[in-house]
């Protein structure tokens, strides 16, 4: 063996070009490597959203073909967006939790609890007097508090997320029923209704709220330290810990965030229905998760996309709208919906693979 190595550098062998990565590249899933277990999602760019765009476009084509102007009208688009708004806000929070390697089954239930709590307050402290800010803060606080409980149980108590949030699902629903005293709490606070049921520039406040939350979520996930840490915690918690990230604290924040969005969604639900009820939000968790995953966020954590989630939300709401336009019976709708969820995921996967290898 030589005692001294020549000054080695790859410079001589491969022309350095920072902008053009080597032609042979290992993709997310390593060659049967440790990552073989995890589905790969391609680098970035538009590639991974092609499937979603195609799916949404296809739906719209079906909508126009079958319902014509009824589907393509401005009013109908707003109807779709209003429907999407509540789910959408939940899904944004869920995107963070899932990207961070967790899952939150309690969001629907927490939505119900927050809506009841805020509206009971509203109705009990004598209608007109209550300022809408009080209602809103109540809902946000209740939501966040539930999220913190989830987070602490999961991060510090080390209870599996699925179980901890399932327990919260059950418990929050029970508490909501007690608080509501099994009655629907009608909201009489005019100022609240005025603010949240209004339009701004012809677009409903609810839709603006969804847009704002989505934008904030996008920025938070992609352009802040918080977002990057979320990816790290979900992708490789041990590496995150060793890099000095407080994984447990961050995990708690993630669930708190999801609770917060559930609180926001509760406010929106209150505005939409003008009533708080313990049944509000039932089964929304499953829809929200499905939207997030169809959007391309990895259920295993470590990779999330807000843009994808927004597409997922829109696909689901448009689907429902097209169904109603076409007078499909619920049962058939259900079957079709199941099939379409699977088709969307398959499509997204295939197209993503193609756009990656091209």
């Amino acid at each position: 063996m030589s005692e001294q190595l020549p000054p080695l550098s790859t410079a001589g062998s491969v022309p350095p070009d920072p902008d053009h990565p080597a032609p042979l590249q290992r993709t997310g899933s390593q060659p049967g490597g440790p990552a073989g277990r995890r589905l790969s999602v391609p680098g970035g760019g538009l590639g991974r959203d092609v499937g979603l765009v195609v799916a949404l476009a296809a739906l719209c084509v079906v909508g126009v073909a079958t319902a014509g102007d009824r589907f393509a009208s401005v009013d109908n688009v707003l109807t779709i967006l209003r429907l999407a708004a509540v789910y959408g806000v939940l899904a944004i929070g869920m995107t963070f939790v899932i990207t961070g390697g967790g899952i939150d089954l309690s969001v629907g239930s927490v939505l119900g609890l927050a809506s009841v709590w805020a509206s009971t307050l509203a109705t009990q402290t004598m209608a007109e007097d209550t300022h809408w800010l009080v209602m809103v803060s109540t809902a946000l606080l209740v939501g966040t508090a539930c999220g913190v409980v989830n987070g602490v149980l999961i991060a510090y108590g080390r209870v599996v997320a699925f179980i901890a949030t399932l327990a919260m699902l059950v418990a929050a629903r029970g508490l909501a029923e007690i608080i509501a005293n099994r009655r629907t709490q009608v909201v009489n606070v005019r100022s609240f209704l005025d603010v949240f049921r209004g339009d701004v520039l012809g677009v409903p406040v609810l839709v603006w709220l969804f847009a704002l939350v989505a934008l904030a979520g996008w920025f938070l996930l992609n352009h802040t330290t918080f977002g990057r840490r979320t990816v790290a915690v979900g992708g490789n918690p041990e590496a995150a810990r060793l890099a000095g990230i407080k994984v447990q604290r961050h995990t708690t924040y993630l669930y708190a965030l999801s609770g917060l969005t559930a609180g926001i969604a509760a406010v929106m639900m209150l505005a939409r229905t003008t009533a708080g009820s313990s049944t509000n939000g039932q089964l929304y968790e499953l829809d929200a998760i499905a939207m997030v995953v169809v959007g391309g966020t990895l259920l295993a954590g470590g990779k999330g996309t807000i843009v994808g989630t927004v597409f997922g939300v829109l696909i689901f709401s448009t689907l429902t709208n097209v169904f109603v336009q076409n007078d499909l019976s619920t049962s058939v709708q259900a079957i079709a919906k199941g099939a379409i969820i699977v088709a969307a995921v398959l499509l997204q996967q295939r197209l993503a693979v193609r756009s990656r290898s091209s």
Partner: protein
Amino acid sequence: ACTSNTPEEPEDTSSAPAAAAGANDEPGEPVVIGFSAPAADHGWMGAITKAAQAEADRYEDVELRVAEGTNDVNLQISQVEQFINDGVDAIVLLPYDGAALTEVATRAMEAGIPVVNVDREFSSRFAARTTVLGDNYGMGVSAGTYICEQVGKNPDAVVAEIAGIDSLPLTQDRSQGFSDALSDCGLDVDNRVAADFTVQGGQAAAANLLQAAPKIDALWNHDDDQGVGVMAAISEAGRDEFVMVGGAGSANVMRDIQAGNSVLKATVIYPSTQAADGIRLARLILQEKAMTDLVEVQVPRTVQLYAPVVTAENVEEYLPTAFES
């Protein structure tokens, strides 16, 4: 709203065509009616939708758009919004939660689309042109009164109740009526459990209830569909020491009452044809016709249905119009 148990207006709820008033059935100008109801996840609700559809099919001047079946108020609101966008002529709405759908119904009314509210009441009078109301409180009163007649002489009689979905206002109304009627004869509800209008829910709730209450004198079950499960649990436990009263009035239960060989002695009807009535009324309103048996020239604001008790004596009368669960 009026919650009296007395028949207010015998708007004939049986869909027997014979009851239909002659001239009103003549074809009029074609109308488009939008219909939305909760998920048809149990017999009564299934019957509601089917009856509505059947009623619409009887009239060639009625086009029905069914946006059926959801227990998600957010989605149901959106369905109504779609009806408004589409400019249907009228909307028949059985809301999952009356209060939650009030606002969108009001919007429909404001857009000039008459709304017929069925079963679960809106929280505002401005939200509907006409309301076809079941009498939930009255249902409880009927059941309680019947039980008083059966076991009222025994002040220590144990009375049990199996309610439907506890978080729905209608369940609260029924229970209220029930306990009010019981207290008239000095009884109260000793054991109460809630199920969920489903067979499995009824079965589980009843199995547990029977375990908790070793001896019962009378039992009221709010819904005959979940009653299938309740009966299964009763036979499983081998219990027969009490009288049982049903609710809603399914054909199954009526046949059991007729046979007379089970604990089931009576049921309180909650007409499953309300939505069908709603369709008819919507058509009349649109075609500016009135109810011929009334002097009134307009369709009334509220029609509250009667909640009669069906027993072995009168079961034959009700069996033909009962819904098959």
